[in-house]
């Protein structure tokens, strides 16, 4: 017995040694790019998937009629040339005729019609249907020839071209299958620069170069998309050169700027964080209260403490890098001025109770609950700092962190009024500035206008902005829109966080940093 135990002991120690020595081979193969997609993709089908990891893979495997260029303009991809009728309602697209699916079949206009038919089919579990329904009427796609297709719109729609960046799926594979459960969703076939090779659940996905790509072929031979959900682990992997690119948290940026193996890229994104008021709540109905809160928050202080200066204060619902951001700002900026806040609250009738240090009016305390989702450390910390700012002017803000699914349920509750006081959240903006779903009064309570914002002028401006095709004219409309929204203070716009990415120096051919930059277009990227 004793001898047996010894044997076991020696064997275990030996295994320990051996396994400690068998480190993975250094992945510096000169044709392989190692990425971290941050989580397990759900569905590798572009019309069904909504999560970021799936979208990242789909972006490499599929292509759409149009795509977004490095400078955030929309350029043709599968489309060769196109024309628009004078009334702006009929688009004619001539498709490239040299495109092949990864299984060798030719790409035709039938695939395009099939894709949009599937999206419009109610049996398909997609959230993108409303993009192709204007005023409840579907956009009609008609196949004219093998490589010519037309789209007829029921009304003029500026975001239409950006919605045509939708990836196309193959008719010949999917036409007789239930698209929601097809095995295609785990073994995709597309027309993009990379082909799907392998998916090890929970581990990684391997893509290989598409040799028959219709544009200039990719310089990389292989992309390994690893699944490392934990940010800390991902950073360690970046340092160990197990992945070539990774997001760097604000607090760690100094550490990585001097790293000899990495280049640190920083860029502004189409993204803003905000605090929203439920405008049906009696406390927030009074605009003086909202103004007071706006003056009580030091936005610069927030960007300094939370973002370490890597970001800027926000005042309107558009990001500075968007073309719609006004060049000559006319919108109001609420400077940090707690004295002004106190004055406004006094005027509004909220008197400070010296015992509780909380303001009161007609026996009611100026107290509310802010909900936000768990798991976003920056937002949690912002909430706690704002809590302190408000407590300094006599407002008691309680913070409630909620699990994501319950949180979404609460905000999207189709009831009127909705069951919350205030929310802290962030919006990830689309390339097209039309945000009708957030601000239009018809989007309450069933859309994303969950604060019951109702301003007729804003509604009109939103409709005009969406229907006007000329970009210069649109810019003027949006400038008026932003000024109006900012003055109404339905949200307190907090900040635009920058994105900081560390990329291994061996990766070359990157585009300038930006929300559509760096690895876009992927065909130019290579390893040295």
């Amino acid at each position, binding site marked *: 017995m004793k001898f047996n135990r010894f044997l076991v002991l020696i064997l275990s120690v030996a295994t320990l040694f051996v396994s400690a020595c068998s480190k993975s081979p250094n992945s510096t193969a000169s044709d392989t790019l190692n990425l971290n997609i941050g989580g397990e993709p759900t569905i590798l089908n572009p019309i069904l998937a909504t999560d970021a990891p799936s979208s990242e893979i789909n972006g490499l495997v599929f292509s759409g009629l149009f795509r977004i260029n490095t400078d955030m303009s929309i350029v043709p991809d599968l489309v060769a040339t196109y024309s628009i009728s004078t009334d702006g309602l009929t688009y004619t697209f001539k498709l490239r005729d040299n495109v092949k699916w990864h299984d060798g079949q030719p790409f035709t206009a039938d695939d395009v019609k099939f894709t949009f038919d599937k999206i419009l089919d109610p049996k398909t579990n997609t959230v993108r249907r409303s993009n192709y329904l204007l005023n409840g009427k579907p956009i009609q796609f008609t196949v004219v020839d093998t490589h010519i297709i037309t789209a007829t719109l029921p009304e003029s729609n500026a975001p239409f071209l950006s919605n045509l960046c939708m990836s196309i799926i193959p008719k010949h594979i999917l036409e007789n299958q239930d698209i929601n459960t097809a095995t295609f969703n785990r073994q995709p076939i597309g027309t993009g620069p990379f082909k799907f090779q392998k998916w090890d659940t929970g581990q990684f996905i391997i893509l290989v170069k598409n040799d028959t790509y219709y544009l200039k072929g990719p310089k990389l031979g292989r992309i390994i998309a690893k699944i490392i959900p934990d*940010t*800390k682990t991902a950073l360690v992997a970046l340092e160990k050169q197990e992945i070539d690119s990774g997001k760097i*948290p604000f*607090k760690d940026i100094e550490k990585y700027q001097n790293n000899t193996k990495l280049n640190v890229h920083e860029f502004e994104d189409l993204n803003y964080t905000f605090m929203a008021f439920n405008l049906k709540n009696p406390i927030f109905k009074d605009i003086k209260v909202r103004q007071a809160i706006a003056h009580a928050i030091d936005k610069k202080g927030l960007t*300094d*403490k939370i973002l*370490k200066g890597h970001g800027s204060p926000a005042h309107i619902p558009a990001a500075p890098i968007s073309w719609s951001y006004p060049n000559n700002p006319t919108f109001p900026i609420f400077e940090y001025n707690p004295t002004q806040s106190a004055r406004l609250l006094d005027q509004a009738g909220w008197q400070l109770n010296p015992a509780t240090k909380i303001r009161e009016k007609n026996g009611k305390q100026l107290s509310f609950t802010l909900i936000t989702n*768990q*798991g976003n*450390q920056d937002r*949690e*910390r912002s909430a*706690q*700092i704002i*809590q*302190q700012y408000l407590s300094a002017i006599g407002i008691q803000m309680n*913070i*409630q*962190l*909620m*699990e994501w*699914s*319950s949180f979404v349920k609460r905000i999207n509750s189709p009831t009127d009024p909705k069951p919350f006081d205030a929310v802290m959240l962030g919006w990830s903006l689309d390339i097209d500035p039309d945000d009708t779903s957030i601000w239009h009064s018809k989007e309450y309570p069933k859309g994303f206008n969950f604060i019951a914002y109702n301003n007729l002028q804003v509604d009109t401006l939103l409709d005009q902005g969406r229907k006007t095709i000329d970009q210069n004219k649109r810019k003027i409309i949006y400038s008026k829109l932003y000024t109006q929204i900012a003055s109404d203070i339905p949200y307190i716009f907090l900040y635009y966080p920058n994105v900081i990415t560390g990329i291994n120096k061996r990766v070359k051919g990157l585009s300038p940093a930006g929300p559509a930059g760096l690895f876009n277009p992927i065909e130019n990227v290579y390893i040295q």
Partner: protein
Amino acid sequence: MTMSLTKIAYIFLAGMIIIPIIVSVLNLTNPTSFSPLFTGDPICPCSEHWLGTDDLGRDLLARCIDGAKISLAVGAISVSISVGIGLILGLISGFYGGIIDSLIMRFVDLFLAIPTLFLILIIQVMLTPSIFNVMAVIGLTSWMGVTRLVRAEVLTAKQRPFITAAKARGISNTTILFKHILPHTLNPVIVAAVLGMGSAILIESTLSFLGLGVQPPNASWGNMLQGSLAYMTDAPWMTIIPGILITMTVLSLNIIGDHLRNAIFKNS
């Protein structure tokens, strides 16, 4: 265990209970205020902050003491709930026997068969996590062992001659149950309670770590560990200290429970 170790356990536990009470009554520390020294990074242990600060600049010692209050309270109340339920069910089941007994035991089997942590997760996700429902959920899923224990004690006690005598004398069943049988069950129940409290604290810390327990800005040792994840390399004390506190508290409870159990063993 040696007497000295047991004595240390009692003293530690007493300290864990008394110190937070004194500190909060006298308002000696502020676990939610941000340190003036804070510049954006957690501060390591130094003279102003004996245990350093967390990632928002709040004094860690203050938060640990606050966390003690919450973790111990959650432990105590959940265990009271589970022991309460277990006691009642066990008494009824053991004393009355028959169909009631079978039903209750089946119920126990059912609950034992459902994967508990899973169940707790689902329930917590269903309710908005807060201190109160953490206590309720742990209490409502830990009563099974106590029920079986109490039932076994009752069955043994039922056979004793003085019970038969009492029945012969015409004393009502309820009186027999509460006046004569119940006291016999108390000893093992107290042991179960002490040990159960340790287990409740472990479950609460796991739930809070997953974000489904006590919510920030309230401090519980478990959710302090969740906040420490991003700072494991920069501020390891944020990860080490709350864990040590949990371990020492549960350890003391286990040692005390063991001690009590041995004492009963010797006497029976």
